[in-house]
């Protein structure tokens, strides 16, 4: 009895302390900029933004940046709730896209940055192709008229290749699509699966979408991603993509056994030298640089196409409830400055306003040059999972069926069309 009483008393005290210290961190004075992002400290963005924080504190004496490294999933799941409360930060990194920034903008939770973007000249630093994912219309669809975010880095897909394996089998780096298939044939002949793949996650659908993009143009992408016109999933581009992808699995360019593996497995298969090529995003770049010790590697853009997958990186957004908007804009301005942009590039990131002259490492330079090639060609084709909520899983299921051969390409394209059209009627297009 006595013991229980003691425990209860201790508990009561504990609870009091809990509630007493629970409320802190929520009040925001002009002396503090509350900043959230979810990049790891050793990634290119982590390094560059850390430096930006330092510069910000130097140029704003008396203002402290209260930075919190966030859990990606937490921001994804709770952003609308957090931004609608007094605990919202002054500025945060948030995913670009209709289902994320677009949705928050539509709900009125984000500040319209348009006048600031023009005033500070950020619109001139961002090519129209990159800016598309920063601007949204009243329905929250990207490519709109108002700026709700500012990206300071970009991302795109390229083929990472293992120089050692290319040399070993006497394969030369392909510059045309025919050379690419010839190279893959050569590897298959030696019993090596040329392409790393993860069928349970994004890699498979990115191969598929790249094949479609190689037969597509800008209006095609706009129709698909921005609902500017009717999308025909049985048009030549989609049909070519689905049949070729299924064909590649049959030919052994892509291992059928990767049907249920994850992107992480595809990356490690490339890093361990199992597959000589991996078509994936610049987000792998820093990790490959750090962790591949056994062979030399390099990159090339997908051959024989004007467009490839890519877009701006995540955005800086300013919540409507931010109490230090001016400071938030100042911080964005610093991340757009040349030295921060170059720092990003020198750490294996892709800055939006890149200057190859400011990059020292030759491989990093190539990363930037490839990016500039894409941007000048208006070649960023975005990602296939953007148009509808839950579309990622639809694409995973479809590509898995193609790999297993359980559905014909035409059936799989039908399975893509249905949720797409349902979403269209939901958003009122």
């Amino acid at each position: 009895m006595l013991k229980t009483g003691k425990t209860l008393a201790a508990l009561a005290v504990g609870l009091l302390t809990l509630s007493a210290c629970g409320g802190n961190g929520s009040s925001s004075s002009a002396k503090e900029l509350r900043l959230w992002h979810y990049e790891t400290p050793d990634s290119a963005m982590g390094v560059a933004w850390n430096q930006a924080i330092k510069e910000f504190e130097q140029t704003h004496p008396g203002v402290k940046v209260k930075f919190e490294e966030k859990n990606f999933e937490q921001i994804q799941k709770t952003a609308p709730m957090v931004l609608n409360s007094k605990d919202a930060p002054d500025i945060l990194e948030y995913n670009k896209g209709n289902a994320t920034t677009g949705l928050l903008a539509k709900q009125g939770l984000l500040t319209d940055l348009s006048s600031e973007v023009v005033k500070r000249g950020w619109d001139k630093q961002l090519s129209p192709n990159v800016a598309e994912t920063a601007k949204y219309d009243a329905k929250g669809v990207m490519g709109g008229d108002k700026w709700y975010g500012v990206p300071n880095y970009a991302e795109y897909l390229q083929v990472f290749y293992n120089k050692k394996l290319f040399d070993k089998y006497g394969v030369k780096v392909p510059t045309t699509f025919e050379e690419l298939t010839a190279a893959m044939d050569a590897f298959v002949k030696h019993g090596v699966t040329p392409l790393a793949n993860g069928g349970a996650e994004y890699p498979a659908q990115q191969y598929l979408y790249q094949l479609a993009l190689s037969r597509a143009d800008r209006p095609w992408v706009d129709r698909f991603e921005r609902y500017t016109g009717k999308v025909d999933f049985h048009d030549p581009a989609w049909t070519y993509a689905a049949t070729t992808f299924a064909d590649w699995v049959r030919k052994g360019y892509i291992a059928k056994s990767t049907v249920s593996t994850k992107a992480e497995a595809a990356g490690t298969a490339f890093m361990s030298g199992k597959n000589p090529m991996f078509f994936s995003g610049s987000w792998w770049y820093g990790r490959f640089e750090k962790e591949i010790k056994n062979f030399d590697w390099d990159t090339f853009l997908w051959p024989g196409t004007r467009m490839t997958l890519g877009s701006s990186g995540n955005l800086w957004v300013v919540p409507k409830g931010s109490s230090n908007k001016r400071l938030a804009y100042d911080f964005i301005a610093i991340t757009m400055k040349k030295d921060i942009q170059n720092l990003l590039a020198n750490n294996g990131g892709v800055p939006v306003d890149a200057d190859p002259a400011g990059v020292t490492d030759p491989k990093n330079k190539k990363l930037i040059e490839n990016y500039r090639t894409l941007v000048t060609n208006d070649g960023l084709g975005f990602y296939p999972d953007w148009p509808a909520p839950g579309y990622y899983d639809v694409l995973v299921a479809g590509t898995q069926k193609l790999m297993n051969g359980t559905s014909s390409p035409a059936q799989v394209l039908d399975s893509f069309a249905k949720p797409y059209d349902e979403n269209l009627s939901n958003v009122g297009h």
Partner: protein
Amino acid sequence: MTVMARRRTPGSYAVLVSLIVLAVVMLLPFVIIALNAVKTPAEYSSHGPLSLPKGVYLQGLKDFWERVDFGGKLVNSVLISGSVAVLAVVLSVLNAYALGIGRVRGRVSIMVVFLLANTMPQEVLVYPLYFISKKAGLYDTRLSVVIIFTAIQTAFGTYLLSSVLSAFPRELLEAARIDGAGRLRILWRVVVPISRPTLGVLFVFFFIWTWNEFFLPLVFLVSNENQTVPVALGVLQGQKMMDATTTSASALLGVLPAIVFFLIFQRTLTRGITVGSAK
């Protein structure tokens, strides 16, 4: 020993073998996690998750510890799980005393309500709880999580304990009543001591369940300084990247307190059970 061995039938060997297999199957994931916990990221990337580490590499873990202030997260988790376990057991006992022994009117329907509350997925609860906690000024406080989980665990505890207590020996209660004990006295002096093993089990379960909770703490503990261990571990799973080696290392760290807690209380549980049976 030899006598024992001779008595073993093929059947008991089969049981032994299947138990060993089961133990291996249960322990294998832990072994793999432990293996990867001490690898360098480069080793993991080039040789895969099943290779043996060349040496013990703990730098990643150290960096992670400092990066997320893991000590602070441990304190939060202990504080939250401990408070929930104690509060939920106390509330469950009080509820179950009324429902199981007191036999209040309509207790069956009340039990059904508790049972339904248990089957409710947490995703359904999120928005109502969010609005309530915001209105009460408790959003982004550890107290909000303590209150929510006390309620959730109590729903289960009440349901379970009510069934247990409805089978409580009536003679004991009557004897106490004849001796002049009031209701409160009967609860604390008769019911609680005799059902201590059950309460102990509930306590351990509540602690570990609350410790492992991810979704609601993720939603309600927004500030980094309020977060629990599972939420902090989520930092390692990025948008496109995962850090397999550090995740393994910190996952081990994260379950360690729960395992230690379980082992400590496991012993008192057994003792509690033997005491109960002696009576």
